[in-house]
């Protein structure tokens, strides 16, 4: 007995020692395999319009957001006050107390989207595109509200309700049911394509990328150590939550993440107030840079691409993930969830991302030429020279720390928690796509969850350039399929909207308080 224990111990020590090496070689193999087999897909998704450097996928998202904005008559501005009233619960039937409230649906969807995009993504956008990128980011956020509105209304309208009271919804369901209702072909094919991309996106951008960045941030604070250790710990926690049903960890995260978000915004506000005299100048830089580029890499087109791209990465409007998150709410009117969801890109992009950008600009992280006022590029000419040569999450960290030294630790905790909550959300989105393809069932769901946990370790272990490129591409591929469906189904949303607004006007729908 003792002997076998000792043998097992020895074996596990050997395993632990060889793991890094194994992970290393696996990494290389995975890298090569992915790069060879998926490179065409990545370059297809991110390929620019002919003769420009503007990726067509960004254009695709922005055009869709513009179409929805115009088609629904600037719904994001018209319905904004009503959205707030819905979230406050003014229109909630007291009889429904105990069901998921609009506030809860919004908070949960937000904790899935607020994350690295708001911290690292914005720093990348401003670092490459200059302050002007902020302008385009805000614009993309405002337009994205209409995309969210459209997809979330459809998500609720065509969700599946099962006899046990649980609900499954999302683009897969509106593609099949909605297309059938309108007599359109290929709904099923679109749905299967979407589900596949969603699973890939869940393993990649919603998992590996998060694990990877969380490890980078921890290593930044405590010093460098092998990534697979972080990966194993993360995977164990994720496993405990999604397989073991250990709800306490998830609910603690769900409670801490919103406070982290609020703390982040408040700290940013304090820094802005401390530099109140520079706010006017910062907005001047943002507007000037939006149209002139102020000498940044790629000129004003560079600012525009960066702004649009990072906004899309951050708020996921048009991607379809939010339609899954919002579809479980209890409401008699699907359109009300659309109204509520349009607040999501507003909070995520227009508020939080703008805060990050303003703090980076105001704390003077970007080096400019004192004589010409133009920004100085780094040696490679690929980005603006920053004070300490930082980029990405390190740039945001440096900007905040320049005002409050302790904030880098708060930020490290926030990044880890944001990453974790994004993983939990995406494990759910991926699972919904998985069960759509393979059907509901304990074993089938377990298979997905175990694979998901394995990808956490792989993601944290090393920088998997091609794999992460691919997973980003998969998330955007979701948008390609999803937006086709949104165009096809937008008349249905319009009908719902008109009917609801008429009844709201005639007081048929009224406040309960």
């Amino acid at each position, binding site marked *: 007995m003792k002997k076998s224990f000792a043998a097992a111990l020895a074996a596990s020590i050997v395993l632990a020692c060889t793991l890094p090496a194994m992970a290393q070689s696996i990494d290389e193999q995975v890298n090569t395999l992915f790069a060879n087999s998926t490179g065409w897909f990545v370059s297809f998704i991110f390929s620019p319009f002919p003769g420009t450097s503007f990726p067509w996928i960004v254009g695709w998202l922005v055009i869709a957001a513009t179409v929805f904005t115009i088609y629904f008559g600037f719904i994001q501005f018209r319905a904004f006050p009503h959205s707030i009233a819905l979230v406050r*619960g003014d229109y*909630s039937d*007291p009889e429904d*107390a*105990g*069901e*998921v*409230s609009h*506030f*809860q*649906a919004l*908070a*949960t969807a937000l*904790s*899935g989207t607020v994350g690295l995009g708001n911290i690292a993504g914005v720093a990348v956008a401003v670092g490459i595109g200059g302050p002007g990128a902020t302008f385009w980011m805000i614009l993309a956020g405002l337009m994205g509200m209409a995309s969210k509105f459209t997809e979330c209304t459809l998500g609720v309208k065509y969700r599946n309700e099962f006899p*046990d*009271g*649980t*609900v*499954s919804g999302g683009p897969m369901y509106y593609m099949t049911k909605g297309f059938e209702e309108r007599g359109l072909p290929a709904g099923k094919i679109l749905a299967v394509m979407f589900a596949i991309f969603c699973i890939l996106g869940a393993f990649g951008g919603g998992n590996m990328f998060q694990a990877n960045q969380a490890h980078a941030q921890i290593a930044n604070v405590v010093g460098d150590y092998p990534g697979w250790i972080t990966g194993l710990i993360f995977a164990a926690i994720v496993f405990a939550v999604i397989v073991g049903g250990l*709800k306490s960890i*998830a*609910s603690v*995260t*769900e*409670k801490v*993440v*919103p406070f982290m978000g609020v703390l982040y915004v408040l700290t940013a506000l304090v820094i802005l107030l401390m530099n109140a005299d520079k706010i006017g100048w910062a907005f001047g830089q943002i507007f000037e840079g939006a149209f002139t580029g102020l000498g940044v890499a790629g000129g004003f087109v560079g600012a525009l691409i960066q702004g649009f791209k990072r906004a899309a990465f951050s708020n996921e409007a048009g991607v379809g993930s939010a339609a899954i*998150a919002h579809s*479980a*709410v*209890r409401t008699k009117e699907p359109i009300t969830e659309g109204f509520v969801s349009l607040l999501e890109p507003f909070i995520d992009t227009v508020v939080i991302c703008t805060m990050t950008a303003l703090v980076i600009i105001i704390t003077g992280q970007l080096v400019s030429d004192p004589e010409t006022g133009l920004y100085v590029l780094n040696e490679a000419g690929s980005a603006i020279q920053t004070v300490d040569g930082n980029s990405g999450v390190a740039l945001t960290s440096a900007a905040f720390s320049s005002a409050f030294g302790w904030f880098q630790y708060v930020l490290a905790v926030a990044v880890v928690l944001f990453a974790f909550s994004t993983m*939990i*959300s995406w494990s*759910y989105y991926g699972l919904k796509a998985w069960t759509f393809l393979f059907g509901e069932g304990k074993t089938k769901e377990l298979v997905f969850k175990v694979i998901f946990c394995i990808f956490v370790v792989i993601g944290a272990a090393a920088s998997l350039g091609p794999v992460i490129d691919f997973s980003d591409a998969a998330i955007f591929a979701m948008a390609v399929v999803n937006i086709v469906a949104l165009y096809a189904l937008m008349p249905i949303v319009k009908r719902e909207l008109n009917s609801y607004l008429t009844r709201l006007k005639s007081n048929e729908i009224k406040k309960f308080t």
Partner: protein
Amino acid sequence: MNKKIVVGYDGSSASDNAVDFAVNLAKASQAGLVIAHILEWSPYTFLTPNEIEERHARRTEELERAHKAVLDPVMQKLSKDGVEATSELRYGHIAETLIKIADADGVEQIVIGRTGHSQLSTRVFGSVAGSLAQAAPVPVTIVP
């Protein structure tokens, strides 16, 4: 029967005392009883995607369990004793919801049991009795 007495009931022995007290009161003043059980709930908490998905099913379960474990026993006991009573089962903030029920026509007073929480938790979260004493539209009796 217009006059009503609302009893805040949670199945604890303190709330049993409150019911006993309210029964005597009701008999004396010929009022009806409303046995109110409130499930603590706020629309502003944060849930995971899974919790959101299962919420509707959970709620159905919770309501069933509350009926079976808390309300049914006391209602049976009351009807055996020949006391006329109705029950209310709601979600919400306990004191606020009791006040909402008390706002209904004809409610004369609210009777609750004293829960005897520690001083600390009362200081941090406030107590049902304290909130009722401050905000109730009708007299409140607290039964030890």
